[in-house]
């Protein structure tokens, strides 16, 4: 099974970017930028400021990926899917929300924060923002740093469940209780995969017989390697 790679977008410690802009280094052990609406969207966006940091991160990376593929603007909803791989999901938001529960016997629990205590929460925002009506879900993996989400997306394309599926990763830096336990480069990056080549196609992503992932024929072991292979050739 293979698919066309039609767009790449990311928000990492090196900043915000798109595949068409190129980059030597994408994931790095650097703090993530504090995202403001104007960093992502030119137009006012009522929801962005109220989102959790995790949701802002994921939504922004999806926006850049769709923009790179020239698929950001829309007039009718589209059956595009999204599979987001994540290690810690919204754990940082969970901890923030739980602090509100500890006050006044739970009487001050924040309904707005609670709405962001699911790992897939930002995908609902993305669905509304970009008119996406496919299957949108988050997955936690045991192996291969985001490639599980990618294989799932390739299968959805193979089954013709959606014509376009975005696959990627989304993680904030580990929050305080886990800072000494989990070590990975924080950030979000998404690929726009399609059953047909787009305007600025980066080539193809394919799944080998053993389940491994190749980008333009080169075996990759992580999402970071895949993006580097696609962007830098």
């Amino acid at each position, binding site marked *: 099974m293979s698919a066309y790679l039609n767009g790449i977008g990311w928000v990492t410690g090196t900043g915000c970017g798109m595949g068409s802009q190129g980059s030597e280094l994408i994931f790095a052990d650097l703090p993530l930028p504090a995202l403001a609406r104007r960093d992502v969207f030119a137009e006012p966006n009522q929801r962005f400021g109220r989102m959790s940091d995790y949701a802002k991160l994921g939504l922004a990376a999806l926006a850049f990926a769709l923009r790179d593929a020239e698929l950001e603007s829309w007039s009718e*909803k589209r*059956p595009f*899917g999204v599979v987001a791989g994540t*290690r*810690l*999901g919204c*754990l940082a938001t*969970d*901890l923030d*929300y*739980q*602090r509100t*529960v*500890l006050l*006044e*016997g*739970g*009487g001050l*629990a*924040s*309904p707005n924060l*609670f*709405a962001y*205590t*699911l*790992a*897939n*929460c930002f*995908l*609902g*925002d993305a*669905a*509304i923002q970009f*008119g*996406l*009506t*496919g*299957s*949108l*879900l*988050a*997955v*936690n*993996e*045991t*192996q*291969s740093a985001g490639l*599980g989400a990618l294989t*799932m997306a390739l*299968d*959805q394309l*193979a*089954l013709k*469940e959606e014509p376009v599926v975005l696959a990627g990763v989304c993680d904030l830096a580990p929050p305080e*209780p*886990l800072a000494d*336990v*989990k070590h990975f480069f924080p950030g979000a990056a998404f690929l726009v995969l399609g059953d047909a080549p787009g305007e600025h196609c980066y080539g193809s992503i394919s799944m080998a017989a053993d*389940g491994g992932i190749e980008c333009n024929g080169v075996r990759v072991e992580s999402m970071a390697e895949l993006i580097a292979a696609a962007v830098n050739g």
Partner: protein
Amino acid sequence: MIEVCITAAQTVTGLGTGLDPLFDGIMAGKSAVAPVERFGTARYLSPNACCVPGLAAGEDSLLYPLLERLMEGFPAVPADCRLLLASTKGPVDLMERLQRGEAVDPAELPMERVLSRVAGRCGTTGPALNVNAACASSTLALARAAQLIALGRCEAALVICLDLVSEFVFSGFSALQALSPTRCRPFDRNRDGLTLGEGGAALLLMSRERARREERKVLGVVAGWGAANDATHITAPARDACGLIQTVRQALARAGLTTDAIAAVSAHGTATPYNDQMEMTALRALFPGRNLPVHSVKGAIGHTLGAAGGIEAALALKCLEAGVLPPTVGLIEPDPEGVGLVSDAAQDIRGDFVLSTNSGFGGVNAAVILGRGDA
């Protein structure tokens, strides 16, 4: 496409361990709704939930004794099985204790750790994945397992669905004004919110050929699946049911069936005013003029969140075998849109396929169509 069979199914709910106590309990109109003893509820809208009786964890998360009960007596799982977990909050009780200052190992919190422990208990060695799609998590995990087998990526997949009643989630639904002050009444004209529950489900899926080779009884088949997003609201369903309608149409197309083939529906039926209204809108649009048997289990075992779809799919297999759809416990006076569909009495299933649907936060909708197994 390779046919996908379900060869084993097990549940743990507030009505007990196993499918028989669940099916028999609902048939008898029993409900596990009871006052919560796990945490104080004085500041919340409701004192009630459906907890699994007798769960005790000591220093560990309650998730693991729940898993232990689920896997006791479960048939042997092939080591080459792919593992699909469906849990929205995993060991949320450990996170609560950590925040209260108790000595908890933070390394137990990530889902990656939960996956490793579940895989270790179930004896799977391959890649594992936790699906997080809110209250549709286990239906999507089941769909993903079916995808993997249908495409020949694996011959067997184990779907484990687990979620707990926690103050974390209880307080959130209370803050959203979504909890019933008493007990939930799915599809009732006077419904006033959901009741939370906890539980687990285990479903072992295999290709028909693998099931035959291992001489496993086929309890049912996953004939079709679908998923679609409303793209309208973060926490509320689309009033026109656009996402659920699209989801069911996808599932029917995947199964190669028309709506006439569906003999009954296991609905999400949370008993929130908007969810149930949306589902009735979808079912009336999809099955015009038909008085199709529809039920919800939430009045009996509560809303088990990420585990809901797995428990409901397992129960649907039992219903197909028995030829009966259990009553909707808690239903007193059907919503006008539900008259002729939902009932407080058991309804006969006249056909070979049950549609099971779930919807959730983020605009998620998911459905599976389950077919009859070996006689």
